[in-house]
């Protein structure tokens, strides 16, 4: 075992450990349910598929977040990009609902990207401001209440229905995943993303238009958040205030647990995928255990620290 893990690259080790941890969660949860209720719901495919359907929204957000973290930035505007896309999509309705929702994400991403890449405002603060503006716009638009408009049939179909017993949301997540994997591994854009994350000045000197790539990454993140918002509105049949709040920190945590360096330049998409599954399963096991919110938060924090202590430790600064 130890020789095997030594031969793994440093990008693969986190993925393997996180995958093992998922097994631990499944086993622990099953032992608990078996002892308490005499059944093993965690191992039934229906239950797992249902959990993955819920996880798809987080997974799509995390995919976009990863693009931004890889270039050593962060996008804090995700919560209200997601909510705004959902609200605009439901209030437009009709066949244009989904394009309009995605358009909102594209626009927000563009603004974020321009602010970060061209004005050189730290992404931490610029996206925070954009988040506040989006929230303000939506509060003004909806009057602070849950909008009365509902999701279109297409949105409900994409997020809530199943094809051949498999939730459609899962297909969307898989499509996004395939796209991100191809972009990161098979295109020059992907190479540039990693290069910028490692050292933007070096990438610039090598002839990469680093600012344009930064904008593209933020646009992809905005699009991902918007897509998740549109789907989430379809899943819950309507948009509501604060629907994106629960996605910001878990999406960052999923990316980081999957072994992506928060300082950018390193990490594989497979890790993010595993990170999302880990968080979703952890959540569902905790709710099966009837864990109160207090305990959940503590366990959530401990798991992140534990995982990073195992494989996410930085190097000592010695020169």
């Amino acid at each position, binding site marked *: 075992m130890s020789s095997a893990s030594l031969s793994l690259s440093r990008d693969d080790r986190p993925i393997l450990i996180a995958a093992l941890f998922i097994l631990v969660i499944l086993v622990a949860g099953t032992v608990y349910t078996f002892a308490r209720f005499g059944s093993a719901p965690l191992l039934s495919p229906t239950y797992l598929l249902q959990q993955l359907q819920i996880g798809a929204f987080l997974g799509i957000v995390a995919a976009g977040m990863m693009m931004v973290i890889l270039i050593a930035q962060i996008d804090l505007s995700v919560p209200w990009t997601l909510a705004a896309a959902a609200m605009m999509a439901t209030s437009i309705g009709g066949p244009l609902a989904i394009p309009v929702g995605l358009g909102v994400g594209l626009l927000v991403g563009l603004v974020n990207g321009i602010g970060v890449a061209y004005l050189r405002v730290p992404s931490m*603060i610029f996206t925070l401001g954009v988040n506040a503006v989006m929230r303000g716009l939506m509060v003004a638009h909806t009057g602070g209440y849950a909008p009365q408009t509902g999701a279109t049939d297409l949105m409900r179909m994409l997020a809530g229905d199943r094809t051949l017993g498999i939730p459609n949301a899962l297909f969307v997540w898989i499509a996004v995943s395939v796209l991100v994997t191809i972009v990161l591994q098979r295109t020059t854009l992907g190479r540039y993303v990693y290069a910028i994350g490692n050292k933007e000045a070096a990438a610039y000197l090598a002839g990469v238009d680093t600012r344009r790539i930064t904008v593209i990454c933020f646009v992809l993140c905005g699009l991902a958040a918007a897509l998740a918002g549109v789907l989430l509105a379809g899943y819950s049949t309507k948009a509501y205030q604060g629907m994106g709040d629960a996605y910001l920190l878990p999406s960052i945590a999923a990316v980081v647990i999957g072994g992506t360096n928060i300082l950018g330049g390193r990490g594989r998409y497979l890790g993010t995928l595993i990170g999302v599954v880990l968080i979703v399963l952890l959540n569902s096991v905790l709710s099966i255990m009837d864990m109160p919110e207090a305990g959940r938060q503590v366990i959530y924090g401990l798991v992140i620290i534990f995982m990073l202590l195992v494989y996410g430790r930085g190097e000592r600064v010695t020169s």
Partner: protein
Amino acid sequence: MLDDVAIRVRQNIGIVTAVLLFSILYLLYNLSHPKGFSSAVLVQNGDEIFALAMLAMAQTVPVLASGLDLSVGAVMTMVGCFASYLLTGVGAPLHLDIFGLHLGLGTFPGGMGGILLGIVICLATGALAGFVNGCVVVYGRIQPIIATLATGAIYIGIALFLRPTPGGKIDEDLNWALTNSLGDFAQTIHIFDDGAAPWFAPVAWIPVPFVLLVLIALLVWVPFRRSVIGRAVYAVGSAEGAAYMSGLPIDRAKIAAFTLAGFFAGCGGLFLAIQTSSGNADIPQAGAYTLNSIASVVIGGTSLLGGTGSAIGSIFGAMVLRVISFFFRIFDIAPLLQPLFEGLILLAAVSIGALGVLRVKNTLELFR
């Protein structure tokens, strides 16, 4: 002499801008307020500013060492929940219900002594939380932003455990004494002839939170800034490698930075609990305070890259943020539009500050 001043201003352009911006905004606010320049208005504003100002100071210290602390809001909330048990002013039995066990913790003393003890315990809790952050960052070698994200969840968890629903009580005299003017303070604790001493009259109008803010800045921040550890914090922020090679205690500096952040956040939480007379494990509020603390730090002229800036600037940053929301009350801006204006102003403030990039001749300088 004038050159000297000019150089100093140029070196501290961020903080000077924040102070000027605050002065102008606050002057305008008082001019347009029907009861402007009165003690009552000052007291009200002081109460509203204090907690955010403390969190802005808290955020500054780790940022100076180029590490963000995403747990300041959580520490504030947790300390507030502790305060709602310890500052009741009446001796109360404390017990802990955990995993079905019922543990009696004895009776917490009441009266003045109990309140002082409670305050000390609350502040120590905040500092301890910060110390834990520092240890996770330094010995765990985890990036501060993600380490404090995780510890923040733990602190919120503890707060929720203490106060699943908002509640608790704070001694009424304590609440009255700390959230009003110095005159009321003296009257409540019976000093200076109940605040009626003639020499005391000229300062009796000053709001207590304002005095506390100045005291904490002068007695905690300034000595820290001038100590070896404080200088090491700045050095770590500007070039960690160079600081290490110069033999500075970088590990201790980082731990001290996070500990101090925890202490400041604890002060904020304590005041918020005293002000609202309750403990409330409000997760959205904790998040909003954390994010506003980052905004305050930036508006106050501290670089998020670390190494330059000051907690005093951040106090003014926090004041600017708060004054902007005071204006909504004056100009009767529809409540529905307020979040939009707040966001636009924040965005405008950071973007205008960034217009300097347009003057940069060598593009390479952008990629620091």
